């Protein structure tokens, strides 16, 4: 099981999707480097996030949003939810 930042096809936003377990081994593998390493031996650099165009689909968090946690939090999770 490996978390990968897989860029979806057809301009759809990228997704954070765990892939299938390694077929023959139970050794979990390190994730692809979340920060892009500029230097040489990096074999499989992976896009760290959506492009600016894709981000603009979702409005940035403002004071009008219901939120819990500091604005400068390392992680912001936005849920579009339905109570029913």
């Amino acid at each position, binding site marked *: 099981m490996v978390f990968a930042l897989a860029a979806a096809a057809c301009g759809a936003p990228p997704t954070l999707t765990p892939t299938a377990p390694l077929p023959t081994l139970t*050794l979990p593998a390190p994730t692809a480097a979340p920060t892009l390493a500029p230097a040489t031996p990096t074999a499989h650099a992976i896009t760290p996030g959506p492009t600016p165009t894709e981000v603009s689909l979702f409005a940035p968090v403002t004071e009008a949003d219901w939120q819990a946690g*500091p604005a400068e939090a390392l992680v*912001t*999770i936005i849920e579009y939810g*339905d109570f*029913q």
Partner: protein
Amino acid sequence: MLAQLHQEYPDDVRIVYRHFPLVDIHDKAQLAAEASEAAGAQGKFWKMHDLLFEQQAAWVNLPIADFRKLLDDYAAQLQLDAAQFAADLDGGKFTPKIQSAYQTATGIGLPGTPFLLFNGVPYQGPVDHWAFAALVKLEKLKSRQFSAPPPEVIDPFKKYVATLHTARGEVQIELFAERTPLTVNNFVFLAREGWFDNITFHQMLPGLVALTGDPSGTGFGGPGYFIPDEIVPEFKFDAAGWVGMANAGRDTNGSQFFITLGPLPDLNGKYTLFGKVVSGLDVVQQITPRDPTANPEAPPGDVITKITIAEK
């Protein structure tokens, strides 16, 4: 689930809730959303949010009139101003706001609920606490990651012995600097940088392998760069005590490494073998068994307090 994550990481996690009431298929979605807003107007949005989700089974099949009555009970439970709550709800004070939120969400083309954005990126993995806690731990690890592979810090013609310090004792590993210089250079660099301080053996499969080297403890973390494989054909994982680099495919070595606890011929040629346990194999064999891939709620693993390097 997200509330729990926020409680666990109050400084690092912010939770944002936006309404997407699926009004075409859920007859009470609009009213429920408006009720949360009416509670929010009295400073108790999250209380009502939590209550509605916790009690969902109790109201999901009610006729809407009964649900409306139940909302008054919930308002009382939360010690809201009952008259104000009822007036806001029955006067449709928040109807336009929820309708507008619905329009926005459908305008984006959201496929359904819950729809989650993790730092702006749509999340489509399993929605469970373990997965999100792992993502937060990996996010926290980023500040420690390097932007480039390590500089040359070893002399491949010297001898290097790494000592893993654990509560159960020490494990000494001879590093094969001459045959796998890039890998040993990386390992020595990371050890001296303190990368391995206080990390866990996040996976321990007795008789097979003990795996560590990821400060996030998730099994998905790395130092921020990859180094290539260094496969030496005559080095085989044919016994307990060999030390190899974990990877996610060819040339994706980072900082995770494993110690074999028995012959693992399937690993030959796929994983860089760069060292051998020369003392303390019994310490490795006593490590607490743990397999977070099978049991995400596994108890904490054994900790390596530090890895020191002796150069001769």
